[in-house]
């Protein structure tokens, strides 16, 4: 599903060049659950962003489902991402101004689904995650665990082929962390591909494969 070939991402600040991801070649199959680990600043999140088409590589190739993304415009990247990927972040990244339902249905809204249909989808998924009673609430009214479950609901509502998670349990207590990992496992079992950045060995143990990064390079 994912092939990268000599993928590099550098940042420039005041004449200093930093390679966050360096010459990275990897392959991820459909249905895999991959964890990316490594010390702070090793380029985990940058790699996730590159895989999620949120940043463009400085050099190298990235193919998603056989589609080479090199030279893609911002619009094409958005469209490819919108149909195929979902995201979960450590700090949930819910829109404070919108209700839980509105947050969950955002990907469907931007995909152009009519209001009634997307509302139905949102209600179904919230029901499945036992969050129906929170549907009309705003993010700040929810606990951290609940917010992350909402973020999970939003990430999978459009049935993405690839779910990208950036330290999803980082802000959660162990009970809620486990709950979320269960959800991720369940999603994986039903055929979803997951790439998760994590510091936690426990979290990484859920994955089929662990990629170790150091100074932007793959160690294993």
């Amino acid at each position, binding site marked *: 599903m994912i092939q990268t070939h000599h993928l590099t991402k550098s940042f420039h600040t005041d004449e200093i060049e930093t390679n966050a991801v360096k010459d990275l070649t990897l392959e991820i199959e459909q249905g895999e659950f991959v964890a990316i680990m490594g010390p702070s600043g090793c380029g985990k999140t940058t790699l996730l*962003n590159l895989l*999620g088409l*949120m*940043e463009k590589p400085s050099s190298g190739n990235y193919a998603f489902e056989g589609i080479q993304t090199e030279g893609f415009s*911002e*619009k094409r990247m*958005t*469209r490819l*991402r*919108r149909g195929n990927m979902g*995201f979960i*972040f450590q700090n949930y*990244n*819910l*829109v*404070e*101004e*919108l209700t839980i339902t*509105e947050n969950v249905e*955002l*990907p469907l*809204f*931007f*995909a*152009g689904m*009519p*209001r009634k249909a997307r509302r139905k989808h949102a209600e179904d998924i919230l029901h499945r995650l036992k969050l129906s009673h929170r549907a009309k609430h705003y993010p700040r009214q929810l606990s951290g665990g609940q917010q992350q479950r909402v973020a999970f609901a*939003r990430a999978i509502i*459009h049935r993405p082929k690839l779910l990208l998670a950036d330290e999803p349990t980082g802000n959660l207590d162990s009970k809620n962390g486990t709950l979320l990992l269960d959800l991720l496992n369940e999603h994986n079992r039903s055929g979803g591909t997951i790439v998760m950045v994590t510091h936690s060995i426990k979290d990484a143990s859920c994955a089929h494969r662990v990629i170790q990064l150091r100074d932007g390079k793959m160690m294993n």
Partner: protein
Amino acid sequence: MIRTYISIAFKYLVRQPSYSVLSILGFSLAFASVFFIYSHVSYQNSYDKHVPTWNRVYRLSGAINLPNNENIHALLGPRLSPVMKEEIPAIVQVTRLFPFEEKCIIQAGSQVFFEEQVYYADSTVFEVFPLQFMYGTPGEALLTAGQVVIAESIAMKYFGTADAIGKQLKLNNEKTLEVTGVTRDLPDNVHHKMHILLSMKSLNPAILEQMESGESENYWRPSAYHFILLGEHNSIEEVKAVFPSFYDKYMAEFGNFLKADFQLIITALPDLHFTPQYSYDLPKGNRSYRYLLMAAGIFLLLIALLNYINLLSASMASRTRSLGIFKINGAERSHVYKLLIAESLMIILMSAGIAWFLLTGVEVWFREQFDGTQLNSGFRTGSFLVLILIVFAAFTLSFLLSVISRVYGQPIRLLKGEAGQFSKRRLYGLVKGSIILQFTLSVILIISSLLITRQVQYLLKADVGYTTDNILQVKLHAEGLPVDKILSFKQELKKSPMVREAAYSSNVPGEAMGTAHFKIDVDGQEASKIVSLLAIDADYLPLMEMKFREGRNFDRDRPTDPQGGIILNEACIVFLGLGDKLTDKRIGNIEILGVLESGKYNSLHDQSRPVAMYFQTGNRGYMNVKLNTADIGGALDYIRKNYEAFFENIPFEYSFLDQTVEEMYRNDINQSKLLGIFTFLSILIANIGLFGLVALLNRKRIREIGIRKVNGAQKWQIVALLGRQLLLWVGMALLLAIPVTWYISTLWLQNFATRINFPWWIIPLGGLIILCTALLTTSFITLRAANRNPTETLRYE
């Protein structure tokens, strides 16, 4: 989809109340001002455009050029237009309006009214001005003697019904007239009202006969307003081209006698109200105020837009994160645009709604404040509203798009709440620029407003050469009554201790006066000069406290004074070029008895009019009464009682001299007040934007302030640091504003013959006003920043 966009936009507005409220407030004030200015300007713009023929009708005036003396007469000889129609094929119809010198007394049943703008009109008047008839037939209404056509409102006032056909009116206690037509009212913005039109045949037969005479003077003698109607495919150039030969044929004879040139002035109907003031014309409007107000409107819109830019930029800082989330969840650039478009449209629509509400709310107040019909315009905002909204939406959106596209390309940074150093700097630069521009526009308005107020004050307080305090002017309308009655009335008034003095004059300041041709010897050649005439009695000049430069007042005991003496005002001496030692001189067989030090009888928009005063008491004019009491009501009652005893069936009408003088500048006073209001609003809106900016700026500098405080900076030093920047901006705004203001002011002051020198101190004053309001606006935020505990501020970052 649209519903969702609106719903999200609405939530954003609710969640950022200070941004929404300040944006809406700024736009509402600007919209209300612009709607108001629009309706005011469109009212002025539609002057005399209510008849379908407006673009083919022209009024004729004549510039009569004597040596050293040009005089433009709005009234010309009665033969002029009828003969022009015969001679010039481009003219398909003409009509004349013969005005009365003064207000008319009209009696309807037992009621008596004073009416202005009553005309004798040719029967062709309804061909040139196709007024809408409610009753009667235009072709037959003014054919014979004794016919009158009145407007609907006049019919209602006189008879309580619009159907007044066959009813009778009595004019000036002499002529009986029958109503033969009732027309629909014209709006107030017409130069010649045409609400009471008498048939031309109702004129005295002797005058009618004289009018028909073909002598050359009959083309010159000021007696009628002439209107010509051109054919649909004709141009005014055709008339201009033929006129020189027309002049040679009919008018040159009297012109040669006067040693005068004649230049025909043709004014299109819609321009009539805005041309310079001519002799015998009605009071006019001033287009320069229209342009000033339009400029103020555009400035206000710009300021409001800049204000929105500032507030939006400030709010962008707090919304970049949610934009990042949208983007990661599949939002394309167009989605973000649509969201922001929905938001701006909501702000604009809400503002327009509030502006509409504000306008209808303050309309009544405005009308009371600016007593005058000029603002009585109704709000024709239908199409304009849409236009403004579209223009504004376009402006706002183009800005939004530019802001968004600048920060949009970096979703991950957006997500982290960073818009990138570069974007931040550009955003800040943009906001700073817009604040300076706002200040510049406000300073231009402040300085213009100060200048206009000062000029108007100068006009009101200018030394006109007479006192205006406590002088009551009672209108005399005693045609047909012996002059002795006027004299007895005067003596009766003087008996009261409440009256210090009473004196007769034919006119009051600001009024059109009769004129006379003086034959003067200029450098050995005889020249004819036209001066205004004012009839007064011997008590008038002392009552008005007018001072003599030379000579003496009229003397009742000298029998030659009434026939053989005149007193001239200062302007008259200059105009006639009489030089020094005037009392030795004579004009023809008239002796110059005295010369006044000043004596300005007309509005100071124009050069002081030359006035010659002669000794006579007439039965029309004014009884000027100098009051000797603070009990104005009591004095008025006393005078009214006497008036009614002396002049039965003639309404008692009075005014105070100071009000009469003020009336000459009514338009200036109103417009300067209006400009003052818009200036205030511009400052208010600019400061709303500034508030948003300073909030943003201080957030940006919180860390810097913290470090400075940790390193020993005092509170006042922090305040000074933040204030210095404001000072810099105001300074830049002043620099930008000075050339613009200088240009506008010089242009505007040209409207006044008597004007102030540009007072340079108003420039720093303008700057000071904007600086003070800006400091006041920002002091709260600045003091809060300065008072903050430095450990807290450093932790903030």
